[in-house]
């Protein structure tokens, strides 16, 4: 396959089209504008629909409609815009509709700035919307993975009838790297049992998250959701380890932070410090078991994030008291530096 230099945001777009996505609804916001621009250029050429919605709220509800109608559908935004989608994501989750939502995070809170950041981990992973639900959260660390995970995201969404969030950051979206465009997975999902298409020769289908009667109807829906989540937790954790087995110190990071950690591991190894990296690729389900195994016997874990400490809670929940967990965070769209990471880890060794 040919190698192309592609911008992260555009790679998502092309990968979505490869995955069979023909409907995109979104609203402009930096730093992800190249994605809607790309879709507006490409989708009409492949018989698809690009629609710039009047707002992020409208966009996520158009996604809901298109998904209910059986389509593979995507929206994208960045932090403030994604906050506006919270109600809609909760509705999609309650109605068990598949959708792919991209968040190219920027510095917050509020209007903040447009530098890349990782401050929306809690929102994506714990659920920024109301009620008990989960989205599958994928954290690509570069352009190739953005493309590959986009294709995977559509399959996961359809397989589990769930929202899949691609949680990137502005830097990754803006970054260009050479990639090999992924092939379609070829997986086919039959939606005929539930999708809306007109009740031709069958009983009407209804897509709804409301459960009023009997009293425990909503509890039943939730129980089914929880069962599904347990299945996903078992089946879909993804992670990457590098130089972790013999390491004394384990760095944990996702997305861009993980790449900075990888450089830090090299630097540390060069300096004679046995460091390794554990990188969760799925943030939900969080690879807790794998991390606990990887962490066993380490002297210390250092979690590096471009936020004030979010994933670190899941790391702690994974290892509990078995290994001490330290945290290094950067705020407001600043990236962590290899130097400070190296310095921190060396301080443990002293």
């Amino acid at each position, binding site marked *: 396959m040919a190698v192309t*230099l592609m911008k992260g945001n555009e790679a998502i777009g092309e990968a979505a089209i490869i995955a069979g996505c023909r409907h995109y609804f979104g609203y402009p916001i930096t*730093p992800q504008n190249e994605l809607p621009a790309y879709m507006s250029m490409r989708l009409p050429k492949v018989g698809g629909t690009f629609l710039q919605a009047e707002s992020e709220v409208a966009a996520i509800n158009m996604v809901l409609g298109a998904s209910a109608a059986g389509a593979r559908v995507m929206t994208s935004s960045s932090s403030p815009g994604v906050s506006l989608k919270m109600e809609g994501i909760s509705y999609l989750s309650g109605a068990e509709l598949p959708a792919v939502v991209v968040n190219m995070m920027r510095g917050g809170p509020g209007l903040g*700035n*447009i530098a890349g950041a990782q401050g929306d981990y809690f929102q994506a992973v714990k659920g920024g919307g109301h009620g008990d639900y989960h989205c599958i959260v994928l954290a690509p660390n570069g352009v190739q993975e953005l493309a590959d995970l986009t294709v995977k995201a559509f399959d996961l969404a359809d397989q589990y009838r769930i929202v899949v969030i691609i949680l990137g950051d502005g830097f990754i979206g803006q*970054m*260009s*790297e*050479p990639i090999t465009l992924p092939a379609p997975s070829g997986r086919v999902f039959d939606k005929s049992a539930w999708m809306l298409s007109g009740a031709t020769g069958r009983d009407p289908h209804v897509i709804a998250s409301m459960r009023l009667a009997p009293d425990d109807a909503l509890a039943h829906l939730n129980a089914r959701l929880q069962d599904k989540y347990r299945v996903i937790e078992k089946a879909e954790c993804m992670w990457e380890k590098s130089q972790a087995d013999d390491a004394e110190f384990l760095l944990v990071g996702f997305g861009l932070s993980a790449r900075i950690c990888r450089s830090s591991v090299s630097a540390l190894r060069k300096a004679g410090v046995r460091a390794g990296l554990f990188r969760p690729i799925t943030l939900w389900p969080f690879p807790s078991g794998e991390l606990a195994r990887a962490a066993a016997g380490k002297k210390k874990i250092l979690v590096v994030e471009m936020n004030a400490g979010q994933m670190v809670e899941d790391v702690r929940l994974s290892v509990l008291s078995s290994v001490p967990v330290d945290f290094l965070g950067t705020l407001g769209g600043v990236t962590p530096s290899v130097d400070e990471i190296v310095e921190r880890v060396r301080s443990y060794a002293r």
Partner: protein
Amino acid sequence: MYEGLFFAGFGGQGIILAGKIVCLAAMGEGKHVSHIPSYGAEMRGGTANCSVVVSDDEIASPLVPRPSACIVMNKPSLLKFQSIVQVGGLLLWNESLIDLAPSRTDIETLAVKANEIAEAAGSYKAANMVMLGALLKRKPDIASLEAVIGVLGVAVSVRHRELNDINRKALTGGYERA
């Protein structure tokens, strides 16, 4: 080899494009590359810069906190970024628009009259290509001048392709003068 490059100037000087061209050329020569623009402050009137890594090995962090080579195209960029160049690194500065020499003494510096050379090649807008040419001369392991000229056709958007003749001349001009 591993080169961390940094390009800085103001919007409209073709900073991002220069970085992209380097990537494409280096890719063609089998290198790993990455390119991150600083995409301004979601507002007008900002500066533009980008970080490029060219490496024989897979690239871990695409960030370039301490570039081995840095091109600055205007004065604010010089003032802001000369300090980040790694000791022993290279700083190319656009003498046409900067009336003040770099103050660092622990790095290699090179003044390039980019606008003049570009103007001579056909348009001052090709100043970025002049700087790039100079960079290629000083850091030949990044990519060959031919490789860079070779990717111009792909890199430059259709609207501006008629400029590629000028670009080629500007690249060569910069290369020769460095």
